[in-house]
């Protein structure tokens, strides 16, 4: 989803190739056999095929000047994106594997997990997560915050910078249009659970 937010916000068009989950799990997909690590998403740019969601984000980051203005900014953007990814992994584990048993603990821990991002955003005059301009890491963080707000609508109540950040990102015209599109709104965050 982060890649589609990025592409939408950058004014790009793309095609979605939908993989039916049951076919994937039943091993009926050729794609699964050829996928480098046996996983999706897959990204195709002409003849070029790429797997691994963060590799895709970085590729798009380089193409659309979303990777900072020098090597040091690039490194810091990598650093914060990896921090987002770490929390995303925790979230996925909770969301897909511990929904009934782990919810209370996860939500109790959540402020400690969000606090570093509150601090980073509060320290950055540009209002983005890192650097003077929007970077690919911002699309990662936005997605992470949106997912958390679905399961815990008040999780940003003590984090005014993250709340303002989310509002600012979602107000970007092209991104706003995409987030309000039928395609995006109809895409569930979980294959079967109604959240």
């Amino acid at each position, binding site marked *: 989803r982060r890649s589609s937010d990025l592409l939408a916000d950058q004014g790009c068009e793309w095609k979605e190739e939908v993989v039916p989950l049951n076919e994937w799990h039943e091993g009926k997909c050729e794609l699964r056999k050829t996928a*480098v*690590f*046996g996983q999706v998403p897959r990204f195709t740019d002409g003849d*070029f095929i*790429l*797997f*691994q969601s*963060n*590799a*895709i984000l*970085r*590729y798009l980051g*380089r*193409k659309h000047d979303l990777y900072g203005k020098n*090597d*040091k900014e*690039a*490194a*810091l953007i*990598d*650093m*914060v994106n*990896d*921090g987002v990814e*770490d929390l995303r*992994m925790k979230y996925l584990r909770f969301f897909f594997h511990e929904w009934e048993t782990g919810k209370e603990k996860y939500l109790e821990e959540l402020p400690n997990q969000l606090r*570093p991002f509150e601090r*980073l955003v509060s320290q950055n005059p540009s209002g983005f997560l890192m650097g003077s301009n929007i970077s690919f890491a911002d699309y990662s963080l936005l997605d992470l915050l949106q997912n958390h707000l679905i399961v815990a609508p008040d999780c940003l109540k003590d984090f005014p910078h993250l709340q303002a950040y989310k509002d600012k990102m979602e107000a970007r015209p092209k991104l706003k249009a995409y987030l309000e599109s039928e395609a995006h709104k109809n895409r569930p965050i979980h294959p079967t659970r109604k959240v």
Partner: protein
Amino acid sequence: MAKYTITYFPVRGRAEPMRLLLADQGEQWNEEVVDIQEWMSGKSELKKNAVFGQLPRLRDGDFELYQSNAMLRYLARKHGLYGKNEKEAALIDMVNDGAEDFRQKFGKFVWNEYETGKDKYLAELPNQLSPFERILSKNPSGFVVGNQISYADYNLLDVLHNHLILSPDCIDAFPHLKAYVAKLESRPKLKAYLATEARKKRPAHPKDKR
């Protein structure tokens, strides 16, 4: 006085891939060793100031960085270890992220199931190794991507080293992985580093009691 400083616990862990990279690239660095008990005590200033409360930390002069893969990418850009164009860079990222996933599975096993889950982990291991065998088999240069070494090679080598400690014959059925490890280990500067006391004395991870 070396300009790089690695701040970490006295283990290989998540700092070792960048040590392999720096050594192989002929760079020197300082080691700032952190006592684990002090780190966990709740009184560590270092931990409070760390962006995500974690180590390792890399310093390059005044510049400070956290997140081990961000460090690898930073050093890769400085040393020409990120492929020759955008597509190679993306493929290197892809393979590194696969190695990172593998490292995380290994880490989870070490922390949670080291005593109880060894048989299961080893039974699963060939499925984890085969994507990398396949990647190497498709690249005549013998590196994971492109014609020259990249930062992903140092990360993958380190993950393989961890597994060879656990099970010394685990790559015997994977000829490309076996050749890959031998080839990388024979690179002169890397070979010299692997023979140092510092490297030999450093446990791979806190449960490595050799």
